[in-house]
């Protein structure tokens, strides 16, 4: 067989082209792997060798990067690579039934490519379409609101080898579902107004304006934005003046989808905010780190960037100011929740495995390639642009003393109107539930899997950094739901998403998952629930990063605030029961030895 010379089909030629356009820069490794995966349904061995040679990295190292990211594979996936969003809210909308239905129709086992290589069907962590699920990704493209009828059609389209571009366009329809707007969502799109103010009034004045507004990071931690920018501006490590602005659009927290909507409808303001930050701290380089699940947004975002370059809002001498040079590059993630943590995100931007760094030093002094770097959430940059344009007073006009302005919430689960709600800080959970049409509510999970489970007696608490902080996830569960399903979903999520670097998270998370599964099976006793608490507290106090310290939250909240869920499931008849069936564990030996005497069994009724 003669190898094709068409670079579209020939891995070697394709890889060479990638290397050439990346200038053999190892920081581009992840981006190149991502492109290879999309092109060939896997990363071909020949490409790994080629990358290894050109970038002077060992093949094992490149394999370790591939192994880290869920969307990268060394063996071919199906021509149609289907991933069901595995968020609890997708489950609640019936995704698991649809998944097994599609597997049956296609004659494919979950996670294993079909023999003819046509298709794989698998799951992935929350895809950020919880308000219009169940959702799937097919070769990186998003399909929403699945039902049995659509599944039937999808199976047919795949059997007929219909190209994705010819699938019914309404399958791919994504709605923004903006239900409630306030300051930010009703603000006009900035086309240089904020940046112009920075040029006219000076960086220090603008930094003061943002400080006066009280703006705090919207990623959940709530660090004062002006302070972060100031630290970065004043950082002088090794005399470098090369600073970096990074926008964290790795929106992976289950149940969060507000950044998707902002990037779709307010991209100008987000980029304006990044440019403003560059003007203030003196950065030349900017990145938007976009989660792999949002690949479909990339072309339109590139178009916005191109338009802004045309208008002189990006590039050299921005708005005619000599020496104000700044541009933004979009980097894709590849399915790793941990990359939402800022130091993992920076590692990933450098083309590496997304393992969190030790802190300090913090990114503001030693970030991307050890340069002073500001990493902020999409919503934070957007808010900063609006503040620069409309003033700190305007921003402070809503919210609370400690949490000024508004918060975008992505609401999903058991409510009549799931979608995006921009609410003033200080709004109570009950007010939000009323607004989204939720009744008979058993619990609200605020801030995603890593957040807090709020019972009805706490519904008067409010969304604010000083009370219930959140990056935006707000999942509603009514009284018909079994909350243990949610806890189990989260426990499995954290095992999948742990980067594996530190033992408390890697091992603790797995032990926690086993105990939650045991409880779900009705086999857990008091001893096991005590163990859950011990492991949870150990994870919280000793994990390397925020993933490990927040992973046990949902289990601990269940034990503390929802004891009835545990009581219902406890095995009261025994002080301790194994998680597995002992007699069943002898079946293999019975089959091999053809024995069935009394000693070939273990009594399980103790």
């Amino acid at each position, binding site marked *: 067989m003669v190898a094709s010379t068409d670079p579209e089909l020939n891995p070697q030629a394709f890889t060479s082209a990638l290397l050439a356009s990346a200038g053999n820069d190892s920081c581009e490794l992840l981006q190149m792997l991502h492109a290879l995966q999309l092109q060939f349904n896997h990363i071909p061995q020949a490409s790994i060798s080629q990358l290894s040679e050109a970038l002077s990295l060992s093949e094992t190292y490149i394999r370790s990067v591939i192994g880290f990211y869920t969307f990268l594979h060394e063996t071919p996936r199906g021509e149609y690579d289907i991933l069901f969003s595995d968020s609890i809210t997708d489950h609640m909308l019936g995704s698991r039934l649809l998944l097994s239905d599609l597997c049956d129709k296609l004659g494919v086992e979950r996670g294993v490519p079909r023999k003819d290589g046509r298709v794989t069907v698998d799951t992935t962590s929350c895809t950020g379409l919880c308000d219009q699920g169940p959702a799937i990704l097919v070769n990186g493209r998003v399909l929403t609101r699945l039902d049995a009828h659509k599944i039937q059609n999808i199976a047919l389209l795949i059997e007929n080898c219909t190209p994705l571009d010819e699938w019914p366009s309404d399958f791919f329809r994504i709605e923004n579902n903006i239900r409630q707007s306030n300051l930010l969502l009703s603000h006009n799109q900035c086309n240089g107004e904020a940046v112009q103010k920075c040029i006219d009034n000076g960086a220090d004045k603008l930094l003061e304006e943002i400080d006066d507004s009280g703006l705090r990071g919207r990623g959940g931690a709530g660090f004062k934005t002006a302070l972060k920018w100031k630290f970065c501006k004043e950082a002088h490590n090794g005399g470098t003046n090369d600073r970096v602005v990074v926008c964290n659009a790795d929106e992976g927290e289950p149940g969060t989808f507000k950044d998707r909507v902002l990037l779709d409808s307010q991209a100008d303001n987000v980029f304006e905010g990044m440019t403003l930050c560059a003007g203030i701290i003196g950065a030349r380089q900017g990145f938007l780190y976009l989660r792999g699940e949002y690949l479909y947004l990339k072309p339109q975002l590139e178009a916005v960037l191109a338009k802004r370059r045309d208008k002189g809002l990006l590039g050299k001498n921005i708005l005619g100011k000599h020496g104000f040079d700044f541009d933004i590059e979009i980097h894709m993630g590849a399915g790793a929740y941990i990359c939402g943590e800022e130091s993992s995100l920076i590692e990933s931007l450098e083309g590496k495995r997304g393992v969190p760094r030790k802190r300090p030093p913090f990114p503001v002094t030693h970030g991307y390639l050890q340069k002073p770097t500001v990493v902020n959430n999409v919503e934070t940059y957007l808010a900063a642009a609006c503040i620069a344009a409309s003033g700190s007073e305007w921003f402070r006009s809503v919210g609370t003393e400690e949490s000024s302005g508004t918060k975008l919430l992505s609401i999903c689960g058991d409510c009549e109107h799931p979608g995006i709600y921009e609410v003033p800080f200080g709004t109570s959970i009950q007010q939000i539930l009323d607004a989204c049409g939720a009744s008979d509510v058993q619990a609200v999970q605020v801030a995603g899997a890593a957040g807090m489970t709020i019972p009805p007696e706490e519904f008067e608490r409010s969304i604010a950094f000083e009370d219930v902080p959140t990056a935006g996830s707000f999942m509603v569960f009514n009284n018909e739901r079994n909350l243990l399903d949610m806890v189990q979903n989260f426990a499995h999520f954290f095992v999948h998403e742990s980067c594996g670097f530190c033992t408390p998270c890697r091992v603790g998370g797995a032990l926690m998952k086993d105990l939650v599964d045991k409880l779900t099976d009705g086999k857990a006793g008091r*001893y096991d629930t005590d163990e859950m608490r011990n492991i949870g507290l150990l994870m919280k106090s000793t994990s390397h990063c925020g993933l490990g310290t927040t992973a046990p939250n949902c289990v601990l909240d269940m034990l503390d605030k929802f004891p009835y869920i545990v009581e219902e499931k406890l095995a009261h008849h025994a002080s301790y029961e194994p998680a597995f069936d002992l007699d069943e564990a002898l079946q293999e030996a019975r089959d091999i030895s053809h024995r069935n005497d009394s000693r070939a069994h273990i009594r399980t009724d103790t």
Partner: protein
Amino acid sequence: MAEKLKVATCSLCGCFGCHMSFLDIDERILDLIKVVEFDRTPITDIKHISHCDIGIIEGGVANAENVEVLREFRENCDILIALGACAVNGGIPAMRNSFELKECLEEAYIDGVGVHTKMIPTDPEIPMLLNKVHPIHEVVKVDYFLPGCPPSGDAIWTFLTELIEGKPISFPYTQIHYD
């Protein structure tokens, strides 16, 4: 003199290395038997346990007999201790867990080098193997875990004396680091 504490020990799926290490307490065993009386152990050769204050288990759970003995210990001991890597984690025997049981038996009795009478034993006297080897806490509740392969005689001594004296158990660093 106060009544002596009763102690039982056994090795399930282990190599008896932890018991050998236990004997490394050397002459201190004379001090020990001033305060404890051994019930079922390989030293006394008593076959069935009676009620004890402390039960010490070496080895993981690999077959039906291990389950039976372990349950007997749990029922009869106030405090049950997992001693050593196999009891705590499954240890070396658990390395078979990445294979099917059938593959393991075929390797040992059929395909192995130098095997003459090729057959998998089926004698009812032989305990039935579980499909996987388990640490003991996956089968019964365990009160204390003493890791090590094996834990040193000194570590076992520290552990037992502090337990018997009713103190919180803490080891000098040298007794619990393994590199």
